[in-house]
């Protein structure tokens, strides 16, 4: 389905920076960890985007490239200073190249507990048609 998918997954826990040009604001952009499952009806993508609210997700499909962006609003706790950090905070961005048999109007995106689930139903004409074989 895409070159991004076949790339071997980095199994470390560290967040991977996205392969994007640097930002003008100096903020970091991470590549969300993704699970992709395909069924006969379509493809489901699950992207881990902790800290991203439903309204801050931007999904676009242009020329077969599905781009997902998530904005994180960092909340620095008042009166507290960061003493020890194991993870960085930043926006999420990742793009996938799709095979073109998806109906862009029927893509469903929902966010729950920091995971974005994208459901891409296959276009009706691309669904494998079963041909019944009649007995003679």
């Amino acid at each position, binding site marked *: 389905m895409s070159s991004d998918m076949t790339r071997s*997954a980095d199994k470390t*826990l560290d967040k991977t920076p996205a392969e994007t040009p640097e930002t003008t604001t100096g903020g970091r952009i991470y590549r969300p960890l993704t*699970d992709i*499952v395909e069924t006969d009806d379509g493809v489901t993508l699950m992207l881990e985007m902790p800290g991203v609210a439903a309204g801050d997700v931007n999904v676009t499909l242009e020329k077969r490239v599905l781009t997902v962006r998530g904005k994180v609003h960092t909340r620095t706790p008042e009166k*507290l200073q960061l003493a020890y950090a194991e993870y960085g905070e930043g926006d999420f961005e990742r793009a996938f190249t799709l095979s073109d048999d998806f109906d862009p109007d029927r893509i469903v995106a929902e966010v729950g507990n920091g995971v974005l689930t994208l459901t891409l139903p296959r276009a009706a004409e691309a669904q494998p048609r079963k041909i019944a074989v009649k007995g003679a």
Partner: protein
Amino acid sequence: MYYPTYARRSDPFALMRSMLRDFDPFTPPGRARPVFPAVNVWQGDDAVAITAELPGIDPVDIDISVKDNVLTLSGERKAPQVPEGARWHCNERSFGRFTRAIRLPFAASDDKVEARMVHGVLRIVVGRPEEDKPKKIEIKAA
């Protein structure tokens, strides 16, 4: 390179082990992983806050307990339900049980701990008990 363990000669395999440690290709130095979840710790005069990214975990599945000065965070990441016959193209997320103990700079009581989960980010605020707070000592004039 000098191997002090070998100098004692009590253990014939000590040299081999220390050499293997030097050339161990599987554990790059400073990357003793995997630890889940990664945490950020925030410190202040009255409280300590711990934040962790726990995407895809229902707040119900997270257990937080405090005993003396150790805060334990445990839970389970449940694998997504996929219909039978589904093909996996990409499997970067991981699932299963996790537990992590975090040492606090003071002994906290349970009623001073507050946890909140927003969009997959857990935030635990541990209040510092009154008796642990530094006391200002006034100097009396002679």
